């Protein structure tokens, strides 16, 4: 990996060079009842709107590569026949400016399932193809458990990753495009003193994590505790509202609806992101529901993230960003659920 450093004031110029394309980054959206700033990812036109010191965005960045609603195809009906037109979209380049490690790792995980296998998802592939990612180091929040999930640092999946030190940015350069980008600004190789400061910054950040999830033998424990009563207790608290899936950077499941225009000349097929906690997630025609009870759906969500995905890809689907717990109206958090399931073992 190649490292570069540049003065903090040069970031504005870096932003300006990229500005010919659509830039999405963390912006301020308001304040909560405690006066804390609420951040979210949005299109950034003015450098001063970009808040790289953000704590955590409420939503993940997924609406830019897994839109909540997406047209899969359109139909034209004529003389008892139909024509299907598919627009895989995604032709416009997209710059992510300021993704934290958790969200970069979320993309890496989604790539495995959505771009892999026999049937890569072309819609996602198109959205991913022209993406340029500038990562940014973060300050761990009390709810962040990415360190437990092994996603507290990103090894790949970005073009440039910035860590702010006193007066300078320490940049990891991972693509030729990022390398050339830096030619536009006042940038140089780091010296040994800056290496040391960079490693110090990493160590300081490491020491700031509070939340923790014990993932040792978790796949086995989830199997052993599949019938544990504690799932029912969480199920009784869960509102089955699906908020956790909507804010999750890696929840990708969806439903499909088809529509016909009022003039019967056109129709369309639309995909919408779904949630396995919603009542009809696993219901089939004829009325049978494979997961009719709230706790079976909540359990399935944990089972898929921490058991099924691990079996398929040898890593968890959860990146430990903690957004689900922060947004959950019933106050259910991943560290608490997993700790309680582990505790029922003893």
């Amino acid at each position: 990996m190649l490292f570069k450093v540049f003065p903090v004031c040069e970031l504005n110029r870096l932003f300006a060079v990229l500005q010919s394309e659509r830039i999405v980054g963390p912006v301020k959206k308001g304040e909560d009842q405690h006066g804390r700033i609420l951040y979210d990812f949005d299109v950034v036109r003015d450098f001063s709107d970009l808040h790289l010191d953000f704590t955590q965005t409420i939503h993940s960045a997924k609406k830019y590569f897994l839109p909540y609603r997406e047209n899969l195809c359109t139909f034209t009906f004529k003389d008892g026949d139909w024509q299907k037109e598919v627009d895989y979209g995604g032709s416009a380049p997209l710059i992510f400016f300021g993704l934290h490690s958790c969200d970069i790792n979320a993309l890496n995980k989604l790539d495995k399932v959505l771009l892999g296998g026999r049937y890569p998802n072309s819609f996602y592939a198109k959205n991913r193809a022209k993406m340029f990612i500038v990562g940014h180091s973060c300050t761990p929040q009390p709810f962040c458990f990415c360190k437990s999930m092994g996603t507290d640092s990103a090894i790949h999946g970005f073009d440039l990753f910035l860590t702010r030190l006193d007066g300078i940015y320490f940049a990891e350069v991972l693509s030729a495009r990022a390398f050339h980008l830096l030619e536009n600004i006042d940038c140089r190789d780091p010296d040994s003193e800056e290496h040391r400061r960079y490693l110090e910054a990493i160590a300081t950040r490491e020491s700031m994590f509070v939340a923790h999830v014990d993932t040792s033998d978790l796949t086995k424990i989830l199997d052993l505790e599949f019938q544990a009563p504690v799932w029912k207790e969480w199920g009784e608290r869960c509102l089955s509202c699906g908020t956790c899936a909507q804010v999750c950077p890696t929840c990708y499941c969806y439903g499909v609806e088809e529509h016909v225009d009022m003039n019967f000349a056109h129709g369309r097929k639309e995909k919408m992101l779904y949630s396995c906690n919603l009542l009809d997630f696993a219901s089939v025609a004829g009325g049978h529901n494979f997961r009719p009870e709230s706790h079976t759906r909540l359990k399935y969500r944990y089972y898929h993230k921490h058991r099924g995905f691990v079996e398929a890809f040898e890593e968890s689907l959860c990146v430990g960003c903690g957004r689900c717990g922060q947004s959950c109206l019933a106050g259910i958090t991943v560290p608490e659920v997993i700790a309680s399931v582990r505790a029922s073992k003893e």
Partner: protein
Amino acid sequence: MKTKPESIQPGAGEQFEYSYKAEITNVFPLTRMEKLYQIQLVDAKERAEFIFQPGQFVMLELPGLGEAPFSISSSPLRRGDLELCIRAVGNMTRFLDRVGRGAMVGISGPFGTHFPVEKMEGEDILLIAGGLGIAPLRSPILTILEQRSRYGRVDIIYGARRPSELLFGYEYAMWRRFDVGLEIIVDHEEPGWQGPVGLITEILRARIGAGSADALRQRTSAIVCGPPVMFRFVCDLLVQAGVPVEKIFVSLERRMHCGRGKCCRCNIGSTYTCLEGPVFDYWSVLNLKEAI
């Protein structure tokens, strides 16, 4: 050093939303609720290349109305032409119930795993179907009958709620001509019914009792499909009788919106039913939480 997997380059995998255009060439009413639809791919080249295995499914799309998975009910030897046995029970299938021959539909697939009848050659075969479970089983039944001499004893045990709900009744005489034991049981009698009334497990128990224990242990494969509640009773009986768990095959139903391992709706614990199923051996089923 890689920043992005190769498959996210533009143009990768643009078949995701592709479906074959197909025509409903014939519709046969089977019961009050179910019809058999014969469907033929329109394009001659696609028709020639469309190959499936017994137990696989397709996604059937009625443009503008919906798309859903259906197991293929016909024999793979019918090339480019497939039969789907469909109960009018949801929005899309109720609409389908009202369309006739000539309707244009979309077909994608075939998807998923199949009943490995090619590996069952030389063995006795037990096919056990409950209700609409006969729809996916008709494909391996016909496949086995077409190559009857390659198999040992073949028994079909089929249970339905009522005699009037039995599917493919017009074919039973033909099946029997291939030296097949076909036993049918219903939950509720109707006027004119002369067969047994009761649970499918009663017939299975009798069949197991009459068979040789060695044959069940050493050279029997079972193919099972029915409503969720039926699997455990039937499979447990087979296991007790000595049929190895890896030689019992089931076809599981799940909700699906893509058939391609992406929508996540058919997931059972760690597995996609559309990719690793719908046909699972019972060993895999025992290893999956909440599969049956």
